[in-house]
């Protein structure tokens, strides 16, 4: 349906792991309570490990909250952790505990990560990051995201399989090769 272009492109407001000038930017639209996203999580980790500085990974929220009642709060908890500099730590924690996402669980994870738990509780209570999460979702819909996880490689929707780790890595390495052969990659150029 969609032309499959990522809108808006990756920018400083995104949560990104890896160098800004990496030849490959992988964007995931994901839902913390989605079992498929849970399966994709270790695969993404493996690609990060394998590609090293060749890869920049960006995560955007796409909670299907009517189907996954804990997804939105979990996303807000990760955003609240980001405000304290520990987005990825909370992101990993939540994906590794998909079956325990009640508010007390989330606060427990915050505590174990050494975060200011009272602040996280206030953020969740007040919905401080609700809009941020919803904005991700809306942008995802406009980019043609139709379910989770949906990946974009260098701004173009990835239509291949992610469940097969080898073919996923192969696609990412191909993209890295193409970026290397083409114009010199610069920060955000592939957004």
């Amino acid at each position: 349906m969609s032309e499959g272009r990522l809108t808006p492109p990756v920018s400083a407001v995104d949560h990104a792991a890896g160098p800004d000038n990496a030849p490959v930017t992988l964007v995931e639209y994901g839902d913390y309570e989605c079992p498929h996203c849970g399966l994709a999580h270790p695969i993404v980790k493996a690609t990060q490990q394998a590609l090293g500085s060749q890869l920049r990974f960006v995560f955007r929220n796409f909670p299907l909250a009517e189907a996954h009642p804990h997804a939105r709060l979990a996303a807000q908890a990760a955003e609240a952790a980001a405000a304290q500099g520990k987005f990825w730590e909370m992101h990993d924690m939540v994906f590794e505990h998909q079956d325990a996402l009640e508010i007390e669980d989330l606060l427990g994870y915050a505590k174990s990560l050494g975060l200011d738990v009272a602040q996280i509780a206030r953020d969740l209570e007040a919905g401080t990051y609700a809009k941020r999460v919803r904005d991700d979702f809306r942008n995802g819909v406009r980019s043609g995201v139709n379910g989770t996880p949906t990946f974009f490689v260098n701004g173009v929707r990835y239509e291949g399989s992610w469940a097969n780790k080898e073919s996923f890595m192969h696609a990412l390495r191909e993209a890295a090769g193409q970026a290397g052969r083409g114009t010199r990659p610069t920060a955000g150029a592939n957004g």
Partner: protein
Amino acid sequence: MAESDLARRASTVLPPGTPAPDFALSSTPDQQLRLTDFRGRPVILVFYPADWSPVCGDQVALYNEILPEFREYGAEILGISVDSVWCHAAFARDRNLHFPLLSDFEPKGAVSRLYGAYRERDGFSERALFVLDKDGMIRWSYLSPVDVNPGADGILNALDSLAGKSAPAKSESSRADGAELRP
């Protein structure tokens, strides 16, 4: 599925610029909805093959989640398949759906046929989308490959056009869009 097969069938869904055929279908065992009841508002018609099948599940879950955005346009969304009202009721309850699912059950597929969105060979509806304006005119239509969730970006772009937010989707100019197929 062969490209030519798809292209041939694509020409069958009613194109933009066509008045949407009226219909009355059951939404629950004791309630019927008539299309003309929604005059004055944009209407999104979502024809889909079957309750419970995985792609449909994702598609309705997505639209269910986007309801607040659709409502910002004042738009109503109606799902239509050949499943019975009891099947729809169970599916809607299971998925926590907040929009009506209509039962094109008897005569089977009659409304889907009116919109050119019926698969004779399979005996169920196509995966097809229509956006109607407040006067009941089709302003955008799209036939998706049956196993592909078409997402919602096309619907939102069509609603934008109706609301005058971007390039106007007069029936002539959007006809190409409506007929266009992207795998």
